[in-house]
């Protein structure tokens, strides 16, 4: 009896969907390792982590608007826009990297605030609002930097410490320090979502906005906050992206947000709002990144990679829907 209760509480604590994702990750990891010698290498895991950071940061942020029943499509092109502006400040204006990082994050917060005001105050649909700001971000990056490709410090150059934060090298071995930062952020944002007023109100906006309004809470304020959090994390993602890929091309970024949104949804965040978890988002992005690295390693061609990734997304959402109906 006691053992049964303990087992049940463990499942409740972690969540059924999250446990299913962990299971799928373990099975896929074993499958890819078995099928591909190159996948089994330590460097492949480091590479997978490196390419995951920016998606993970975007996903943690976008989970908040998703829980309100909204969405933030502007984070992909926004990420590119903010990092290009950061590069422009360093390379063209000679400003130190600290200022570039501050401006990059600041731009994310401003975009998030604008999205939030339009959605919460003017009551425009989040999809349309963030689709528009997605387009604005795409154009703005090119205009502000006169169409120049952004380049962040390369290894060995002044300011390259920002790369070492994510991937630290001792001797010939690289350590994925960025994953520790991500895990710390996952814990912090889980606490924010589940144990603070901000998180509770954001969940309440997604589940019953009218009831929250009637109880005298400033819905607009907390609704805007959800988008500000998303923008802030898009700013962090911009730095992670720039430090990983160095060169950022203006006008790109559309579609990057889909991996983040997909990760959050796989992780159990409801598109209708009202529920979601940061741990789930973390696991969802891990699954997407695993597929992005594993499928090419087993020699699967591009078109099949997309079909299989899409199929797994559908399966994950179907499982979630079925679970909710129960």
């Amino acid at each position, binding site marked *: 009896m006691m053992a049964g209760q303990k087992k049940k509480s463990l499942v409740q604590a972690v969540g059924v969907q999250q446990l299913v994702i962990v299971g799928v990750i373990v099975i896929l990891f074993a499958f890819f390792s078995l099928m591909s010698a190159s996948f089994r290498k330590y460097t492949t895991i480091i590479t997978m982590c490196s*390419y995951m950071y920016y998606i993970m940061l975007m996903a943690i942020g976008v989970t908040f608007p998703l829980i309100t029943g909204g969405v933030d499509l502007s984070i992909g092109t926004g990420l590119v826009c903010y990092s290009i502006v950061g590069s422009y400040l360093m390379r063209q204006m000679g400003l130190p990297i600290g200022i570039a990082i501050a401006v990059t994050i600041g731009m994310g917060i401003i975009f998030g605030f604008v999205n939030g005001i339009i959605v919460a105050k003017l009551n425009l649909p989040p999809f349309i609002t963030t689709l528009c700001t997605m387009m604005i971000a795409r154009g703005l990056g090119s205009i502000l930097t006169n169409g120049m*490709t952004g380049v962040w410090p*390369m290894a060995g150059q002044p300011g390259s410490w920002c790369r070492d934060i994510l991937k630290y090298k001792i001797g010939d071995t690289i350590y994925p320090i960025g994953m520790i930062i991500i895990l710390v952020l996952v814990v912090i944002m889980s606490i924010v979502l589940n144990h603070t007023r901000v998180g509770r109100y954001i969940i309440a906006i997604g589940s019953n906005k009218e009831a929250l309004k009637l109880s005298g809470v400033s819905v607009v304020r907390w609704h805007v906050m959800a988008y500000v959090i998303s923008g802030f994390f898009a700013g962090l993602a911009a730095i992670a992206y720039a430090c990983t890929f160095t060169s950022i091309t203006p006008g790109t970024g559309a579609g990057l947000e889909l991996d983040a949104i997909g990760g959050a949804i796989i992780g159990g965040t409801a598109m209708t709002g009202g529920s979601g978890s940061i741990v789930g988002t973390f696991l969802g992005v891990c699954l997407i990144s695993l597929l992005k690295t594993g499928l090419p390693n087993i020699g699967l061609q591009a078109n099949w990679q997309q079909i299989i990734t899409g199929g797994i997304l559908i399966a994950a959402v179907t499982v979630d829907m079925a679970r909710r109906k129960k």
Partner: protein
Amino acid sequence: MKKALSLFLVLAMVVGLCSFAYADDAKSYSFEIVSKGFQSTYWQAVLKGCQAETKTINDAAGYEKVKFNMVGPDSESDIAVQVNEFESALNAKPDAIGLAALDVNALNDNIAAAKAAGIPIIGFDSGVPNAPEGAVLANASTDNYAAGAVVATNLYDKIKARIAAATAPVRIGEINQDATSESITNRGLGFIDKFIELAGADGYKVAVTGNDKYVNDSKGEKVAEADAKIIIEVHVPSQTTTELCATEAGVVLNQPDTIAIFGSNQVAAEGIITANETLNVCGSEDTQIIAVGFDSGTVIKAAVTAGTMYGAVTQSPVGIGQKLIDLLLAAAQGEAVQDTDTGCAFYTAANIGSDEIAPNLYD
């Protein structure tokens, strides 16, 4: 009074004639330029070439003789977007259109419509290969198939001693950002075909594996992997991003028999450099994997200078832009125009600063 009136009429006629003459001399030309995008510094360099030549022409004329509007899709996979942009360009009724086609088949009807409307088309970058007869008057372009062959020739020279010394088959990776753009596929196939030719001359059999498009379209004899001395493994990512090019490059770089890798444009070459940051297997020594790329940009230039990337081919993007404006103006004025190969050159750490190479490199 009559004299004054006559004088006034004569003056009016002279002024009128002068203004007619001026109007004829001061004819302005408007061009629409449909590029493959603005997604790399390469296209920014083409744009700069167009702007510089336009300024030169307008300064010489003393008025705005030439003006142009340049558009392009966000990605070189966005064929449908480019078709829409070409239609808009056509509707603007310009004096001539510059076109770097992503897929000529998709644009065939619109190219025919331009011809019917009497709007001359000039191809640029990779041009408009296999366009309907007489629709494209001239091209200011790089011969991408030949450019791919230039990479193969330089790479083969670098690694032929290693191939000869190898007791087991060796692997060469090729990363192409897509299998749809004609410039990319021509480069990739030019590389494969030339490499097969050079290796064949030395008595080696080459197997081509990986992406079906490149495997099927390569000209050489189809050889099974088990029978080959050299394996060319072609990878195409599911989306044209540096991240996914880097993932594909990582798969090749991780294999123990890989001795060389080629990235057929800026995104693919940067993907190889990104992948190597973790793997640290590329370099110019005989024990390392020899990486070669295409185009330039800050990251590629730094890698070539450091020797992480052995070399790359640069086109002449600024020259392409300048030549394009010249050809558009000549075509709009009804002058005869002819194809211009804007050329390419292979550069390494040894000649990156030379007069021949440096002006064609961009950040």
